[in-house]
């Protein structure tokens, strides 16, 4: 049995080794990708060991650098972080396999720098998941922004450069202008930044102050993509699809909502939010984000952009859970991090598989593709249904929890938002699948860009993407089904974060 704090260090060290490994073996692709695959497995193993040790009652506290009392770089493990780390690390395995297939299938250039930045982004994600205080979290939050910037700009085209500029501008701008002052303000008020169950602001905090601070964080954590600071997410879609899949459906965006959840539980304290009513306004903002982003998603023809707007809307589910300021909302939000991760990564990987096989990006061109690529489109269908929230798929539970939370908070607006949003999900996700299984338009030919086919090739020649591209989404789609049956366990695992404070 490895000592608990060594496990924490391992979680940071393994992706960092991956970063160096990719650089070291930048000229031997098989060695590079195989090594990172092994490291991804190791990382998942380490996180699972943390999970088991945590259940065994292990203490994790690990102070790296102590600046002043209450101000340190420190790591710790708590249920929310463990769940987030589990999701990110297991999905890294799938995405890495997928990424190898995608990058090779597309003959992308600069693969070594791609995979090394990817590993660094995972390092930052692990750091966020296991931060013991807000300062550490902020450090890794910014590292995540910087390490994903080269990934977004990977194609080095004019468009990629513009997208990356929006990406960095919004994420770094919000974090510097709003998030950082919020952090310093908390420190100036509370004298500490440690995550403590029930909050650190003290009992006599003024409601107006809580409201302002919450606004600084809700908008300052730009990765949570609360409108109007959501534009970076569609802009980031110029990145290669594996990046969109793991980072912009799981790691980066979930780091944002995870931060908001952590702030709610460990900095503000859910009780404080309930008592002061300071989060009321956020219900409306998050609700608005959900509906507006869904409406925009419906109007997008580019598949990845549609999925991006869908992510914006789904992220606000979690923000909404925080805004409801009760324990059900927090748990529902935490569960939604998991279920949405599996659903959305499936959708993105399918979108990438379609691109590898046919080089098609627009939904209107995808008619009939499902017949040639049944596995891809079935996986897409399962992912879509999970996002919509139909049983027996994982997404059903998190939506259910959030509905319960809204009802117990007496927020009829939130209930209405969730219902309407589900309908909108159906409207913008299912047509893609249905269109895919429709008969192919007669007599049309594929573009010449399709790999391995000359001009005039028929639709029938379209095949599934390479196995490395369609197997991972199939697995994550299967994960959506499995998670349906284990959702209760995840809730049970996370529930100490809301019960110990006496609720």
């Amino acid at each position: 049995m490895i000592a608990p704090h060594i496990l924490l260090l391992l979680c940071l060290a393994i992706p960092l080794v991956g970063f160096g490994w990719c650089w070291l073996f930048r000229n031997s692709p098989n060695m590079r990708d195989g090594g990172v695959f092994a490291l991804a497995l190791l990382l998942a193993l380490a996180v699972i060991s943390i999970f088991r040790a945590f259940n065994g009652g292990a203490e994790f506290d690990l102070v790296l650098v102590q600046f002043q009392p209450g101000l340190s770089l420190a790591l710790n493990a708590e249920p929310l972080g463990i769940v987030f780390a589990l999701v990110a690390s297991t999905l890294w395995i799938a995405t890495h396999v997928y990424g190898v297939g995608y990058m090779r299938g597309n003959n992308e250039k600069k693969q070594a720098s791609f995979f090394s930045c990817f590993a660094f982004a995972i390092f930052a994600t692990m750091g966020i998941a296991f931060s013991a205080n807000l300062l550490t979290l902020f450090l890794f939050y910014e590292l995540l922004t910087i390490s994903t910037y080269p990934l977004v700009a990977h194609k080095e085209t004019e468009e990629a450069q513009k997208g990356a500029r929006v990406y960095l501008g919004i994420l770094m701008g919000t974090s510097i202008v709003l998030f950082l002052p919020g952090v310093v303000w908390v420190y100036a008020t509370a004298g500490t930044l440690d995550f403590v169950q029930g909050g650190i602001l003290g009992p006599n905090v003024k409601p107006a102050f809580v409201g302002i601070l919450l606004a600084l964080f809700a908008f300052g954590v730009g990765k949570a993509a609360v409108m109007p600071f959501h534009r970076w997410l569609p802009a980031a879609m110029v990145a290669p699809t594996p990046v969109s899949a793991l980072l912009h459906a799981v790691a980066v965006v979930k780091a944002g909502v995870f931060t908001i959840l952590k702030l709610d539980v460990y900095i503000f304290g859910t009780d404080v939010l309930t008592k002061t009513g300071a989060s009321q306004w956020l219900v409306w903002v998050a609700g608005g984000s959900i509906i507006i982003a869904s409406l925009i998603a419906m109007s997008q023809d580019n598949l990845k952009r549609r999925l991006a707007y869908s992510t914006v809307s789904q992220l606000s589910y979690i923000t909404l859970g925080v805004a409801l300021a009760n324990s059900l909302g927090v748990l529902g939000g935490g569960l939604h991090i998991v279920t949405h991760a599996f659903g959305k990564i499936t959708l993105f990987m399918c979108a990438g598989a379609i691109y590898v096989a046919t080089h098609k990006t627009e939904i209107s061109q995808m008619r009939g593709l499902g017949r040639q690529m049944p596995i891809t489109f079935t996986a897409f269908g399962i992912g879509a249904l999970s996002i919509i929230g139909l049983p027996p798929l994982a997404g059903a539970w998190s939506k259910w929890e959030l509905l319960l939370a809204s009802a117990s908070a007496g927020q009829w607006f939130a209930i209405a938002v969730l219902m309407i949003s589900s309908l909108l999900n159906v409207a913008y996700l299912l047509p893609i699948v249905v269109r895919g299984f429709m008969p192919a338009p007669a007599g049309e030919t594929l573009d010449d860009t399709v790999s391995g086919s000359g001009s005039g090739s028929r639709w029938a020649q379209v095949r599934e993407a390479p196995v490395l591209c369609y197997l991972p989404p199939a697995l994550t789609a299967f994960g959506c089904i499995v998670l349906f049956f284990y959702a209760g366990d995840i809730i049970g695992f996370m529930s100490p974060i809301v019960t110990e404070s006496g609720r």
Partner: protein
Amino acid sequence: MLEGIVQNAPLLAIMLPLIAAPVAVLFGNKSVAFYISGATLVLSFALCVYMALLVSDGSILSYHIGGWAPPIGIEYRIDAANAMVMIIVSAMGALVLPYARASIEKEISPGHHTMFYACYMLCFTGLMGVAATGDAFNVFVFLEISSLSTYVLVAMGARQDKRALSAAYDYLILGTVGATFFVIGLGFLYIATGTLNMVDLADKLANSPDNKTIRAGFALIVIGMGLKLALFPLHRWLPGAYSYAPSAVSAFLASTATKVALYVVIRFTFSVYDASSGFERTTLEYIILPLAITAMFTASAVAIFQMNVKKLLAYSSVSQIGYMLLGLTYLNQTGVAASFIHMFNHAMTKGALFMAVGMVVWRTGSALLPSFAGIGRTMPWTAAAIVVAGLSLIGVPATAGFVSKWVLMAGAFERGWWPVSFAIVGSSVLAVIYVWRLVEVMYFQEPKATTKDPVREAPLAMLVPTWILILAIVWFGIAANAPVELARIAADGLLAGGFDNGQTVILGIPGR
């Protein structure tokens, strides 16, 4: 022997470089000059670290020159505040020198190399002396030593770009005006008190009724030094001097000269005068504070539109000086400490940036933005250095710049000035823009096809000192305790007022 060195540390740290300058010229060989300079700089740095350790318990070192006791004799008086400044100057001096050796090969005609080392050592001596001395007039003397040699150093850039001459001339005129103001201010003080020793001055000023001579003296000192430190509307000499000087000189000046001038302002405001009330306080809150914030925004905004990267960095320096001044105006421990921490961190950051940019100039022959195209591929280590130092300039966590920004903001909240905090972060966003303009050119644009030698990585002699600074930036961005602690001790000493806290340790032979 060792005892003798240690006992005379304050004197040796300054006099060795002063002696090295003429010795280097006498030998007349550039290699000999380099090694003599290098040895004295390293020794000087070691002595500064030793003195910093001595004062880190809050005591003050006093050294009586020539066995004459103050206030008659000249005294070197070192507490945590000067120790920190002296560490900055000596560390940067020692790091820039090996870089300079490679860089001046191309930038300065071979006949001037020994002279370069001599001027460099004189400039170094001057800056160190200003920081070490406890005698107000001695400040002026050392200031002139450093200024005069700086004018020559800047003018040496003329081989690359003739505009260096007019830049040096600008600097000469404005610098002299500044020095004149300063010395007139000292004259007023002398008239009012009859002494020039800082401890004695502080004593006499505290016991004398407020009068216009004393106030006028303060105004002249602040304005004179304001010119030297490039306080916002008085910064006009700086962009030219930094952009047209040889790269090594830009790197050394940008990281030390303005900081030393700022130190003088701090020393006079807090230790000689009394900043806690009266017109000194009014000056800080109603004149320095608005000017600092204006500098933070205006200079950053101007930096965004520069095509010359060295000029971009120069304007960024003007805005960063705004941060350093801002901390002082809080008049609390965190704020004053923030000023010192930012001096330390910004010296590393701007030094590294000027050195990295200098390497690009060395290879491509131009500091204009287009010549940076594609160096992400052709000069990967240089480009990476620019990125890391740029992140520190923005204030991204895990770099030194973040630490100073954090402390500066924490001080503002402590003071209850939360809008100031937002001004700080607002100006950082401008830094994001000008840094990223550079990053995009480096990584997204194709390298220029030249008929001359292809652009490749700079020589190790330049790369290694730069990367030592880059590693220091990251190191002090994470393990920030040492500079923060020293800065807090310095701040405590300054805020206590006066220059004598009863813990004076006399080094060497006490004067009679």
